[in-house]
């Protein structure tokens, strides 16, 4: 039993390694596993119970033993890798037969709970979590469909991770499926544990301003994507579904809209479109109207803006960049802050700082309004990746407006539209609203 001894040596420094003998009738079995991954008392009971009853009923113990799990080769590396995967290894000392048993695992995930990043009104509320299996349970219970296909890939040589690909045979675009599986299968040796590594497998541009995939915590959104012919990926330990490809409509439409009456669901979609335009245009429009084209304003408004900007030392663009910068800092800080002091800091940042900045005549009152509107509107779009896109592209419009005024704002929008029109994900255009016929 040299192999077993080598395994013992390999794991000797591990505090959670369990290695014990099990005597049933006249036979001796050796059982080994990691107790951090295996619930030992229950597993031992599970293993011993059939063997004992077999011994009492005078059945052939070895047959029962092999039926407990999967036979594997008596090889050090195989056994080590099985143990690392959380399997229980049982060896029949007399014959040297090795069985890998699927044990009662230690709970290593939170239970299915409310989503943390994605809020919804009127839809189902259980969210994906870190465990692939419970994600699969959620997906299957939302989509009981014979066409649902699930492929599992094991990535990485040293650092292993499992990736699960789900799609519907009926609706998925065959070319999308081909490129997807090809790229996944060609890169089985690379390690995938985060979205950046996944992006590099799919060769997405590193400088893309638009997200190529949506991540959803709520199973109904993943199911909608599958029904619409898209692919859903799960990476082990990432608590969301990755939906490929992402389209412009994902910014404005969520599955939960369908739980509202149609009029309101349209209203919500229109609100999101208005929100995205507001967050893009407002800061730029402010700069354009205040410093380049004040002639567009009504006289009364121009006069009142001019009054609100009395004594403001900086030109409008510097003023806007200053406050936008602070706003971005606040938004980033809120994520990092513990929830217990988050609200306090938000209040200090939002109200006290804003008021102080105005009182100190560093910026005009109107800019605070514009900025608040733009920041709030930024949150109306669906998916935080999409709000990043808007957050960044508003600076393009802002700077162009500072140069060219309203004309610059317009040309910025044109540039943005042209860019979006050029983005493709795995061969599918970002602006695709309706799938082309023949797909």
């Amino acid at each position: 039993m040299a192999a077993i001894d080598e395994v013992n040596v390999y794991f000797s420094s591990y505090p959670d390694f369990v290695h014990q003998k099990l005597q049933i009738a006249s036979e001796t079995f050796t059982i080994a596993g990691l107790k951090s991954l295996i619930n030992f008392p229950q597993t031992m009971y599970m293993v011993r119970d059939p063997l004992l009853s077999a011994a009492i009923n005078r059945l052939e113990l070895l047959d029962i033993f092999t039926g407990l799990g999967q036979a594997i080769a008596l090889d050090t590396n195989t056994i080590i890798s099985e143990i690392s995967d959380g399997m229980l290894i049982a060896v029949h000392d007399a014959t040297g037969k090795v069985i890998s048993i699927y044990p009662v695992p230690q709970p290593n995930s939170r239970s299915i709970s409310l989503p943390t990043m994605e809020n919804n009104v009127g839809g189902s509320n259980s969210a994906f979590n870190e465990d692939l299996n419970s994600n699969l349970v959620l997906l299957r219970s939302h989509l009981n469909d014979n066409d649902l296909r699930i492929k599992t890939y094991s990535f990485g040589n040293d650092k292993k991770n499992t990736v699960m690909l789900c799609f519907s045979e009926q609706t998925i675009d065959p070319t999308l499926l081909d490129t997807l599986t090809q790229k996944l299968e060609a890169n089985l040796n690379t390690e995938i544990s985060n979205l950046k590594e996944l992006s590099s497998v799919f060769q997405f541009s590193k400088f893309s301003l638009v997200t190529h995939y949506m991540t959803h915590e709520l199973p109904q959104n993943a199911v909608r994507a599958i029904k619409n012919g898209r692919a859903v990926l799960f990476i082990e330990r990432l608590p969301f579904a990755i939906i490929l490809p992402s389209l412009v409509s994902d910014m404005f439409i969520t599955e939960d809209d369908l739980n509202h009456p149609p009029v309101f669901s349209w209203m919500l979609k229109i609100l999101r479109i208005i929100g995205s335009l507001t967050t893009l245009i407002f800061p730029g429009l402010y700069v354009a109207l205040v410093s380049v084209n004040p002639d567009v304003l009504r006289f009364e408004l121009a006069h009142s803006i001019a009054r609100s900007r009395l004594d403001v030392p900086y030109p409008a663009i510097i003023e806007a960049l200053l406050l936008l910068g602070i706003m971005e800092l606040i938004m980033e800080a809120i994520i990092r802050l513990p929830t217990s002091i988050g609200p306090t800091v938000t209040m200090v940042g939002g109200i006290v700082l804003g008021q102080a900045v105005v009182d100190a005549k560093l910026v005009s009152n109107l800019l605070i309004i514009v900025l608040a509107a733009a920041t709030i509107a930024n949150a109306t779009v669906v998916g935080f990746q999409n709000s990043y896109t808007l957050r960044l592209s508003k600076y393009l419009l802002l700077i162009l407006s500072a140069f060219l005024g309203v004309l610059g704002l317009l040309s910025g929008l044109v540039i943005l539209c042209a860019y979006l029109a050029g983005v493709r994900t795995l061969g599918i255009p970002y602006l695709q609203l309706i799938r082309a016929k023949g797909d």
Partner: protein
Amino acid sequence: MTMLSGCWDNKDINHRALPIAMGISYQNGKYKIYLDIPKVSERNAGIQVITATGDSVSSAVDNISMNMESQLDLLHLKVIIVDKTFAHRGLDEIVDSIIRSRHVSPKTMFVICDEPLDQFFKRINNPSNGDGNEIYDFFQKNSGWNPEIAYTPVWKVFRSIHSYTHDVVLPVIQSGETTAIQSNGSGILKNGKMVGRLSNEQTLLYNVFNGISLDGKIEVTGKATLQLVNSHIRHQTKLDNKNPEMYCTLHLNVIILDATGHPSTKEIKLELQTLLQRRLEQLLQKVQRTQADIFGIGQHFRNDLTRTELANWRTEYYPHVKINLKVITTIRNTGNLKLP
């Protein structure tokens, strides 16, 4: 440096002076400019009148700009006021220069002032009048404008100067006794020169005839006072051997405000028809004498005349124009009272 290439000369709105009214008078070969600039300050304190003289309008404006602490931006100019003597002399040069310069919006109102501009600007900016924007509000359709006041932007004046068949009227104002501004009817402008006057009532009729839907009041002598709610007009034309004739149908929707002596609706309608016909007749005779086609009647005959004939429209055809006005009145509402 490339970052600065676009915006180095942009000035923020609080560094621009935004005049709302410009007065132009012409004395001894020099233009004198008055600019009415609302003060930009914490307390919103009134208005500033700045004057300068120069050989041309633009050089006078340049003079002001040079001496002011902020950049002069004429794009918000809403009213251009010229004095009566200047209007009699002819406005074609300044209208040309305004259109050419592009610093002033073509939608700016053109106004004639009945009194010297010095006095006018001094009196309308009396602090007891209000915040100093009266001259602006007076001509705003959503605040002080009334259908008895002509409404003529610069581009229409420019068009009238260069057109054979279309003239304009400009509102005539002066500073009022109890109000800041008082309307004195309007002045008929022919090729940029003021050639006659209309009263306030005639201006209302002019506005109705030009199809501006409005809510003016008409007094039917001795019978009733009517409020116009809605009006539209349709024209048909006939050219009969140098005698242009025009058939107009005016549809009026009115509300009765006052009635004296219990008139029937039929009487009111008949009275209104004769009244309007008589007034239009008077008005037409008056403008025909000045040979200024303020109704743009010639526009309707452009199909029938050659270009050379059109050139003589004002002198040969226009004095012979006849208008047959038919008024169709709908009394929409008798003011909650039943009439016999």
